[in-house]
C-alpha cells in the first residue's frame, strides 16, 4: 500500500517543530526582537501561495475573483518580506562589541 504524501508533509512539519524548538532556545535573549522580525519576514514565504493564486487561469480577465485575492496577498507579503528583512538588518547592524 502506498503512503499518502500528506504523511510525508506531516513528518516534515512535526520534525520542524522540534527543530524550531531547539534552534529558538539557542537564540540569545538580547536578540529576541530581531528574532520576531525575522520570523515575520520568513513566514511571508506565504507569498508563494499568493503568486500561484494570482497567476491561476489568467486566460481572459486577469483580475477575476480568485486572482484578486492573490494579488492583494502578494502586496501584503511583500511589505512583510522587505520590511521584515530590512528592519532586522538595521537592528542587527546596531549590535556592537565593546571597543577594546
Amino acid at each position, binding site marked *: 500500500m502506498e503512503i499518502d504524501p500528506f504523511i510525508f508533509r506531516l513528518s516534515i512539519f512535526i520534525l*520542524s517543530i522540534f527543530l524550531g524548538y531547539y534552534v529558538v532556545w539557542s537564540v540569545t535573549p538580547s536578540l529576541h526582537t530581531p528574532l520576531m522580525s525575522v520570523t515575520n519576514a520568513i513566514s511571508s514565504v506565504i507569498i508563494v501561495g499568493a503568486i500561484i493564486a494570482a497567476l491561476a487561469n489568467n486566460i481572459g480577465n486577469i483580475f477575476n475573483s480568485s486572482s484578486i485575492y*492573490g494579488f492583494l496577498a502578494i502586496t501584503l507579503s511583500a511589505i512583510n518580506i522587505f520590511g521584515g528583512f530590512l528592519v532586522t538588518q538595521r537592528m542587527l547592524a546596531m549590535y*556592537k562589541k565593546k571597543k577594546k
Partner: protein
Amino acid sequence: MSANLSALFYLISGVLFILALRGLSSPETSRQGNFFGIIGMIIAIVVTFLSIGNFSIGLIYVLVFLSIGAFIGALIAYKIPMTAMPELVAGFHSLVGLAAVFVAISAFVNPAAFNLGEPGKIKLASLIEMSIGAAVGAITFSGSIIAFLKLQGVMSGSPIIFKGQHFLNALLLISIIILTYFLCSVQSSNLFWILIGISFLIGFLLIIPIGGADMPVVISMLNSYSGWAAAGIGFTLENTALVITGALVGSSGAILSYIMCKGMNRSFFNVILGGFGATEQSSIYQNKEQKPFKSGNAEDAAFLIKNASSVIIVPGYGMAVAQAQHALREMVDILKKNDIKISYAIHPVAGRMPGHMNVLLAEANVPYDEVFELEQINNDFANTDVAYVIGANDVTNPVAKTDPQSPIYGMPVLDVEKCKSVLFVKRSLAPGYAGIDNDLFYKENTLMLFADAKKMTEDIIKNL
C-alpha cells in the same frame, strides 16, 4: 520546472530559513543568518515563477503588486524609530494573518489552480487544512490589529472586561469547529465566509481583555499564530518551504510566550484570560497609609554616582517612553572616563516585547557585552554601589520575594535593593502595572528622583 525539482528547491529555502534563525544565537553570526534568510526567500519566489512557467501579462501584474509591497515595506523599515518596534512587529503579524486568509479564500474559490479538485468538490484534507489556515490567519489579523492599536496608544492599554467574556469566546470557538465540520460535508461558500467572520471576531475578543504590560506575551503568541496559519496554508499548497517555516515560526512564538510568562511567574492561561487588571481595587486600599520615603534631585544623584565604583543600570518601559536611551549612554560615557564599572540589567519582561530594551540600548551604541540578563547579573547587585533604575518598576519589587499575599509573589525580580544605594527615576509614587506598591521606594538606601527619565538623566549629566 518539474514538480520534483521545485520541491527540492523549496526544501533548500526551508533549510536556509532554519539557518537564519540559527544565526541569531549570537550577534556575530546574526547578520549572516539574516542573509541566509533573504537568499531562501529569493529561491522560493523564483522557483514559484519558474514552476508556473507562464510568462504572460500576468507576470507583469505580479511584479507590479510585488514592487508596491516592496516599496512600502522598505520605506517602513528605514523610517521606523526603534522605540516603535513592538507596534511594527504587531503590524507585520496582522499582514501575515491577512495574507493567509486571502490565499485560503483564493484556494477555496478556485481550487483547480492549486490542484485541489473542483469548486464544491475539494479534497476533504485540503478543505480542513485551508479552514485551519483561514481561521488562524483571521484570528492573527484581528488580534494583531488590536495589539497594534493598544501599543500605539490609539486604544487604551487597560484591559476591557465584560461579563460572560470567557463564555462567549468558548462558544465562538466551538462554533468554529462545528462550522468546519459542516463546511466539509456541504462545501458551501457561505459557511466559509461565516467561518472567517467568526475568526476575526475571536481574534478581537481574545486581545481586548489583555493589558498593556502583558503585551510581550501577546506579541509572542500572535507570532506563534502567524506561523501556524502559514503552516496550514503550506499543507493546502503542499509546499515544503511553507510547512517548515510555519513550524519554525509557530514554535518560536510559543517559546517566546513561555519565556515571557515565566518572567512574570504567571501561567499562559492567566495572561490570556486577562485577570490582572482586576487587582486595582486592592491597591487603592493599600495606598491609604503613606510610608516615609526619601526624595532627591539631580545634584544628589550625581554626587552618589560620581563617588561610586560600580553602577548597574536597570532600564524599563519608562525609558522607551521617554526616549532616554541616548541621554543614558552619554551619562555612562562620562562615568566610564572616571573608571566607574557599568553594567546593564535586563529583566525578561522589561518593555513591551521580548528583547525590547536590548534593541534600544544597541541603538544608543551600548556594546552588547555590557548588557546582562537577570540570571547573569542578579548576584552582582550585592557588590554594587549604585543601582540606577530608569523606567522600570514591578520587576524590581522585593515584595515578589517576601509577601506570599502579593499578586506578583514568585515572579523573578532583580535584587536591586541589595545595592548600597538605589536611585529610582520615576514620575510619581503611583504603583506600576501590577497595581501594587513597590517596597523599594521606602527602603533606607533608596533615593527617589521624581522626574521624566530623559530629563533627569540629562540633569545628572550637567551635575557630573
